[in-house]
């Protein structure tokens, strides 16, 4: 391996630790399909969001006090007396929602273009692990301001674990560090919320490692075959990602500056009070589809198992999908079912925010059945029955043809 520069210092370092070679290999030369569309921007955007969350979170942690009698006021001190503390907190609070929006789009892109299929199963698993860690981190973070929704959200969510037979109650006591959500709970949630993002960061590194080993999927879902099919990551995708980052920052900061509490619940500006239950306890929006699945089952243990199952089942999706074709572009039937699956998830999210009764409950149950029907039955069956459209010979052939037509 030769050093990527004639600079003597760079050469000296690179001969002892090939860090420059590695960077050149994986961030500059890295061969990327030339036909990626803008849906492929969301992975790097999510990575950027993780960095923003860790940085804003670090400075917030310097001013936050994890004690039930001081947490709420310490957050308000950040908002009022810490220099640009309001900016840090609004960046962090809205950043959590943005992170989930980006990751949901990233996941759906994977579903639509079949990015979970061989040889990318491990890449897909690592992504799901990141997603699960994000759910845990988001929940822990929402508890920290110690407002009414923090407290009651923590009470409801931790109580889910009590549904498990025999060990359930013990798990809950262990999570709480006592017999109710109280100071020991807050005290352990804070360090956990601080450390989990670094675990996420670690898994992201492995996720990217796996990606660079199997290379990016692309909208056609076919492998790169010839050098004409790929382009170096830099400058083509660095500039495309930067453009995406610009657009995303405008979207994100519009909330931070003009609607900073859009994703929040007013009740969380009331200090936590164990004696007063809010009339309507709702989790953060990004859990709502799963909350709807939980509540659609009359039996609590069944609900909890189904809710966790809804995510765990995605781990075996690469084997549930029996079609050899990756991209929905060439799957005339499954394409529409994938879009319907997305619509179904939106409906579940809406139901999750409504009181679980009457029509809402029924619609939630139908959507829950559809969620599992889609993954467990329709996905394998359509894979067998569907006749996919003919695949192009290579990535560059349709690209070249298209540009030829345009001329």
């Amino acid at each position, binding site marked *: 391996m030769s050093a990527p520069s004639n600079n003597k210092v760079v050469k000296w370092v690179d001969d002892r630790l090939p860090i420059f070679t590695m960077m050149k290999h994986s961030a500059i030369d890295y061969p990327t399909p*030339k*036909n990626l569309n803008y849906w492929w921007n969301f992975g790097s955007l999510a990575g950027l969001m993780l960095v923003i969350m860790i940085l804003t979170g670090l400075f917030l942690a310097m001013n936050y006090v994890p004690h039930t009698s001081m947490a709420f*006021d310490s957050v*308000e001190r950040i*908002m*009022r007396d810490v220099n640009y503390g*309001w*900016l840090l907190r*609004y960046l962090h609070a809205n950043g959590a929602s943005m992170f989930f929006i980006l990751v949901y789009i990233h996941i759906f892109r994977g579903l639509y273009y079949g990015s979970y299929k061989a040889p990318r199963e491990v890449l897909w698993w690592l992504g799901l692990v990141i997603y699960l860690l994000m759910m845990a981190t988001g929940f822990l973070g929402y508890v920290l301001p110690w407002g009414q929704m923090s407290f*009651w959200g923590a*009470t*409801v969510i931790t*109580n*889910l674990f*009590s*549904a498990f*037979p025999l060990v*359930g*109650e013990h798990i809950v006591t262990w999570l709480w560090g006592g017999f109710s959500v109280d100071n020991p709970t807050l005290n352990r949630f804070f360090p956990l919320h601080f450390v989990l993002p670094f675990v996420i960061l670690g898994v992201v590194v492995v996720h990217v490692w796996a990606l660079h080993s199997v290379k990016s999927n692309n909208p056609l879902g076919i492998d790169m075959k010839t050098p004409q099919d790929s*382009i170096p990551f830099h*400058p*083509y995708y660095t*500039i*495309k990602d*930067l*453009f995406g*980052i*610009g*657009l995303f*920052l*405008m979207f994100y*900061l*519009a909330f*931070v*500056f*003009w609607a*900073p*509490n859009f994703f929040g619940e*007013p*009740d969380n*500006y*009331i200090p936590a009070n164990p004696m*007063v*239950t*809010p*009339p*309507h*306890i709702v989790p953060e929006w990004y859990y709502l589809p799963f909350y709807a699945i939980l509540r659609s089952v009359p039996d*609590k*243990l069944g609900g909890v198992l189904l809710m966790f199952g809804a995510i765990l089942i995605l781990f075996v999706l690469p084997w549930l999908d029996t079609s050899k074709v990756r991209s929905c572009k060439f799957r005339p039937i499954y394409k529409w079912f994938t879009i319907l699956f997305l619509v179904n998830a939106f409906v579940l999210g809406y139901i999750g925010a409504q009181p679980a009764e009457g029509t809402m409950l029924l619609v939630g149950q139908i959507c829950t059945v559809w969620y599992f029907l889609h993954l467990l039955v329709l996905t394998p069956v359509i894979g067998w029955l569907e006749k996919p459209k003919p695949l192009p010979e290579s990535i*560059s052939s349709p*690209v*070249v043809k298209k*540009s030829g037509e345009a001329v």
Partner: protein
Amino acid sequence: MRSMRKLFTAIAAAATLAVATPALANSGATKLEHKEWSWQGMFGQYDKAQLRRGFQVYKEICATCHSMNLVRYRNLMDIGLSEDDVKALAAANEVQDGFDDTGAPKMRAGLPADKLHAPFPNEKAARAANGGALPPDLSLMNKARKSGPDYVYTLLTSYEDPMPEDFHLMDGMNYNPAFPGHQIAMPQMIFDEGVTFADGAPNKKENITADVVAFLNWTAEPELDTRKGMGLKVMIFLAVMTALFYALKRQIWSRIDH
């Protein structure tokens, strides 16, 4: 499992009690009036004169029962009070600060760094003076309710609405269709000419209420003016930067067939 069910039942029961019990016969939705506020929209900013009038309303009316624990006297300089005024306001009340050499609580005159003087020393005292009800701290009120400013405005101006004949009003409560359950422990406090403003601004009860709602919004979001001002600059910067990135992207990608 059982405790889970118990918890959900308890939550549902508490929710029903909190929302439904006082209403009983009245299942109607709460009233909400939408007003135009100076700080709304992309370019919205506070009207400092209105904030000062609102502070006067808070001081003369609300502060008899409601605390404002997150606001300090020095913050009032941000809405245009002079340093001398702030010092004088703070010094009007004594605060306990440590103990003297014999161990007795030491009192001193208030300083600009102290929080606004609370009407009651603690929750028990507040409840005892208000027939068992606790007047909530108002610092974050506008953020702690859905459509905060409109909600507070509607609440304060709906006391004179006619009460339905079949409405069962509990002892010591007041009818108010803007409050969940339609009855509230707080009586009507704002009346026409209830406050006289030094700047001669109109003082019908609607004007007084709008002024105090503006003040409450400032106590809840004191950073709003800075935030929106910074937002405009950041957006202009980002728009230019993104446009340049786009131009560069087109230029770089024109080197290849795609």
